[in-house]
């Protein structure tokens, strides 16, 4: 990277060009509104990442992910709060650092995939928290139990056809009957997702 460090002379030249360009071109909106501009319907595509983490006593914890999921979202351009998102995770696709851990997670000790093959989240309201961020409130259903859940979403990369969100949220697992292993393993599941939406 060192060969890309501009010399004072080239930096000055660059600044000149930028200044010239800004004078010549029509100015862009003062604050680009990422969410409004990205209005539309999107399908959550398979390049997304749905990672989670459960802390354990003494440090460390279980890290895992879901490889199989489907979902979509709609960004309402005129009123972002009317935007919607639904996502379904297939817990059978859970990945962890250890095959035995995966089997344990799939078993009736945790997800009980035989009886409850899907975990769903449906938003009920979206609240803007900034130019590129929103809080998503909704209902998370797992093991046949539905509870309110909240996630924070931040716009990442986007272009005309696609938009990416980083979505994080902490969910208590005990209300879903998944409290096995507490207090060795935290009751809180920390989700860290990258949801890549492709325009429908």
């Amino acid at each position: 990277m060192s060969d890309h460090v501009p010399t004072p002379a080239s930096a000055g030249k660059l600044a000149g060009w930028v200044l010239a360009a800004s004078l010549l071109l029509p100015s862009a909106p003062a604050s680009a509104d990422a969410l409004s501009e990205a209005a539309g319907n999107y399908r959550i595509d398979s390049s997304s990442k749905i990672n989670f983490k459960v802390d354990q006593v003494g440090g460390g914890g279980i890290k895992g992910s879901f490889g199989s999921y489907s979902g979509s979202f709609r960004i309402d351009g005129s009123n972002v709060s009317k935007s919607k998102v639904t996502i379904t995770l297939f817990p059978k696709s859970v990945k962890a650092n250890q095959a035995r851990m995966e089997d344990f997670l799939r078993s009736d000790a945790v997800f009980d995939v035989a009886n409850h093959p899907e975990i769903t989240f449906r938003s009920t309201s979206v609240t803007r928290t900034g130019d590129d961020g929103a809080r998503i409130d909704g209902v998370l259903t797992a093991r046949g139990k539905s509870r309110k859940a909240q996630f924070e979403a931040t716009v990442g990369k986007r272009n005309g056809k696609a938009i990416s969100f980083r979505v994080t949220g902490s969910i208590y697992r005990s209300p879903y009957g998944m409290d096995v292993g507490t207090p060795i393993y935290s009751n809180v599941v920390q989700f860290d997702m990258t949801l890549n939406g492709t325009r429908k």
Partner: protein
Amino acid sequence: MPRYHENTYGIVAIALHWTIALLFLGQIVFGFSMEQVKSLALQFELIQWHKSFGFLILILAFLRLLWRLAAGRPQPPATLSRVERVAAETVQWTLLIATLAVPLAGWALASTSTLGIPSFAFNLVVVPHLPLTPSDEAEAFWRETHKLLAYGAGMLAIGHAAAALAHHFVLRDDVLVRMLPGRAARPATHRVTLETNDDV
């Protein structure tokens, strides 16, 4: 400070002996039973209790060892042959060492397991893993070692108990009685006679 003028092990050794005996034999039955449990969630909880009691045994057995080394033991009855003395002493020492070795092997099993489940004794104290490298092979090795040592020690304990009962009911000597709390708790004046008798 010789403690064994009287023909009793004394209340400290007696309390440790019977507490460890109860916990140790209980753990063997518990350890065997928890392996048969179908529910993985219940099994997880049971294994954590098994580990907690194992650490408790390890501490008590260590105290028992220190007490045995510091306080010694009453003289074996003069009626015992040399072979009987050596046999009794060997079994007693082997059992004492087993009450240390079995929990230690269990600790090694928890430490080498690739699941990396922390040891959180009685949900109170995080017990660090032993400095061993986790691997499937090491875990399998310590699982077998823990199991074989435990079952071996269990059988030896049955022999030890059978010998004590034989002394009490067949030979009618005081080998068992001096490991019972009654004599240790009796007022000192009563012991004087016993002491004199033993010194003959």
